[in-house]
């Protein structure tokens, strides 16, 4: 379980998170929704230990995220892989750090995502790079998977492949996935629970299906309504 207790984070004069309390129960897929600058990426970076809270505490299974890196897989929005590497070199590199690397899954996903190990990361399209990034995190049996805008700037077909990969490999009850995105429509049917963030605060959170039934509208419409009322 991931817990945020009274977490605040500022970058200069900008407040990214403001006294946030939330928890992500184990074994579910969470959607972290909100407009640009809502605090979604900061939430993920705090959960994986790439940022430290100014106030409050973030706990992953009762420990600091820094002591839990072995159990976390992170796909940032930016291209973070070494561009001179081929996909094979990148996989070799990742394999050296994680005992939960699943070679069989890696081989299956290579075929499923139509990627080749010889591909040089600097010479492939943005969509292929996104798939490579996903391949490298999804080839692990990590209990926690954090995806920061995995669909941003990706064509429709590649988006579908990415979503299918997530559905295909998700282990309910075992794995926790947190997807931060403002492309709600694409992941509407993927998420179990949702957190709507705006201006560094949680506007709404709960079970995705319950929210849809209660309000009789899609998650995208719920978000629009929530943010319209908040502003």
């Amino acid at each position, binding site marked *: 379980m991931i817990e945020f207790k009274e977490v605040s984070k500022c970058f200069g004069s900008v407040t990214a998170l403001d006294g946030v309390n939330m928890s992500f129960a184990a074994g579910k897929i969470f959607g972290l929704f909100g407009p640009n600058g809502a605090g979604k990426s900061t939430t993920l970076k705090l959960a994986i230990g790439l940022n430290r809270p100014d106030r409050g505490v973030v706990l992953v299974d009762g420990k600091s995220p820094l002591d839990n890196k072995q159990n976390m897989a992170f796909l940032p929005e930016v291209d*973070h*892989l070494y561009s*001179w590497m081929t996909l094979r070199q990148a996989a070799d590199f990742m394999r050296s750090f*994680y005992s939960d690397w699943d070679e069989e899954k890696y081989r299956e996903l290579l075929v499923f995502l139509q990627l080749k190990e010889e591909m040089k990361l600097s010479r492939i399209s943005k969509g292929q790079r996104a798939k490579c990034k996903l391949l490298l995190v999804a080839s692990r049996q990590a209990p926690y998977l954090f995806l920061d805008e995995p669909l941003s700037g990706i064509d429709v077909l590649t988006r579908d492949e990415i979503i299918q990969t997530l559905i295909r490999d998700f282990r309910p009850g075992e794995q926790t996935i947190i997807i931060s995105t403002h492309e709600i429509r694409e992941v509407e049917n993927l998420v179990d629970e949702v957190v709507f963030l705006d201006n560094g605060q949680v506007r709404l959170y709960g079970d995705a299906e319950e929210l849809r039934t209660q309000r009789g509208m899609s998650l995208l419409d719920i978000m629009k309504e929530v943010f319209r009322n908040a502003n």
Partner: protein
Amino acid sequence: MPTSQKFWALYRKELHELRPEILIVAGLGLLVLILLATVGSPARNVLVFPWGMMIGLAGLLPIVSSFRLGREWNTNSIYLLMSLPVKGGTVLGAKLAALITQYLLGILVIGVTGLIMAVVMIPDLSSAWQALSRITIDPSLWSQIIWGLVLAFVFSLVLLAYVVNISFFSQVVGRLVKRYSGLLTAGIFLFTLWLAGKVILGIWEGLSQAQFIDVTTAPLQLMGTNTLIFAVVAAAVFILTVLIYDRRTEL
């Protein structure tokens, strides 16, 4: 996963990134050898200059390369590096080890090139060596010469680690701020270099006053002490850098 395996993966990655600089020295060495084989006897003597340049390059390039640490931020690979289950000691240790390897490979190229040049340029090398061996030298002097060379080599390694660690320190501290981090890095590098120099001088003075060091003592002992002092300061800067990387660095 054992730390050694993680270190090895990082070290290999670093060496791969240093390949162009390593190839520059190796390429220059090869060029010198090609010229050695093709040009005539009087012109060959000029080749001593590019060979001397190689010595400077082998020493300077690792220091220049050490400033590549900042590229991890510029290329966003810092996201990958910081999310890996490794501490700063492993990350920076692998970088330092790769830079030392780069230096050692440069020295190897210089040594091999120099040896081949000596064989080609000194036609009567064997008789010169025989003449040299006929000179009676006190065995203790030989041992001092050999120890002096070994110490000079060790000192060069320690000096490299000292400058590289200060470079790492300045870059890690410089990245603690978002704006003007390049300017701050340059300022911190120069200031730390100056401060570390003052610390070393202070240690020397302290040791002299406490009569641990006698300036009239054997030069080898002075050289050894100097190497040790530089190594201690380099290690202190490294530890400080690792602490800042582990506890203060964020994205």
